[in-house]
């Protein structure tokens, strides 16, 4: 009995250690600056904030796709950001300005899954700010298109 308990305890300890290792091994895909020390996020940390899924077509891709990610409003709320300007930058240093006031509205999402799979850089990953364009014609405008930044990897907040 004692041996069995010891064994189970050992297994639990090893698996806990293993999952910690795996978690720490996960790649950082988003860095937020402008709020003191830089805040880094892995995909699972983003998912912990909140998850949303919608299907939509986009003007840059063919057909309808399913996007999964964290709503931008929930993401900013988790950082206690309620006003100011958000500068979202892509791997190629392309940067968009996004007033926090607009980012807190319902609609935009930081997507990390495309059709259920993580997005490679070739698929416009690791992160892509998308709107449910098909769901609401209000999102079919130049502002929403300009703010739909792909290959997003860092955000700067100016409050």
């Amino acid at each position, binding site marked *: 009995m004692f041996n069995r308990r010891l064994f189970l305890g050992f297994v639990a300890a090893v698996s806990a250690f293993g999952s910690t290792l795996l978690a720490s091994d996960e790649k950082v895909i988003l860095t937020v600056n402008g709020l003191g020390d830089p805040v880094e996020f892995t995909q699972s940390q983003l998912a912990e904030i909140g998850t949303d899924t919608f299907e939509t077509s986009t*003007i*840059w*891709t*063919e057909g309808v796709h399913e996007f999964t990610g964290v709503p931008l409003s929930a993401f900013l709320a988790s950082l206690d950001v309620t006003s100011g300007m958000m500068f979202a930058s892509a*791997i*190629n240093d*392309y940067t968009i300005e996004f007033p926090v006031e607009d980012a807190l509205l319902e609609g935009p999402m930081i997507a990390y899954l495309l059709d259920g799979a993580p997005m*490679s*850089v*070739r*698929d*416009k990953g690791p992160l892509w700010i998308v709107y449910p364009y098909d769901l609401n*014609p*209000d999102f*079919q*405008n*130049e502002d929403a*298109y*300009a703010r739909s930044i*792909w*290959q997003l990897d860092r955000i700067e907040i100016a409050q």
Partner: protein
Amino acid sequence: MGVLRNRSRWVDVIGWRVGLILLISLVAFAAGLFTLTKDARDQWNELASASRDNNGWNVAQTEVEFLRAMNAVTIAGSKENPDPELLSEVRLRFDVFYSRMVTIRDSSTLAPARNTELSQNLITRVLRV
């Protein structure tokens, strides 16, 4: 009495003519108003629902990403034993350029950019990698 009867006939005639003119003016005004509001409505709809992103910028950016990728290749290629970091940079820059070519291939608004045989060939050759 006769004068009065004549006057009322004149008023009838004038009234009928004024009425007709008023009616024509009203129809013309309504038509003008309709055309103006339709024009305004069309413009409003066009502004409210943009079907295109900035195409010129998208195509120009593809060239920028191509040059960045070529630059990364040149830098890595100039070393005898390039650092893994330099090779990662080559891969990253190529992937960014590749994603731009995928956008040109798939985007509904960029259809004009793939209308020529030359652009079709380029897209096929790059995306084969």
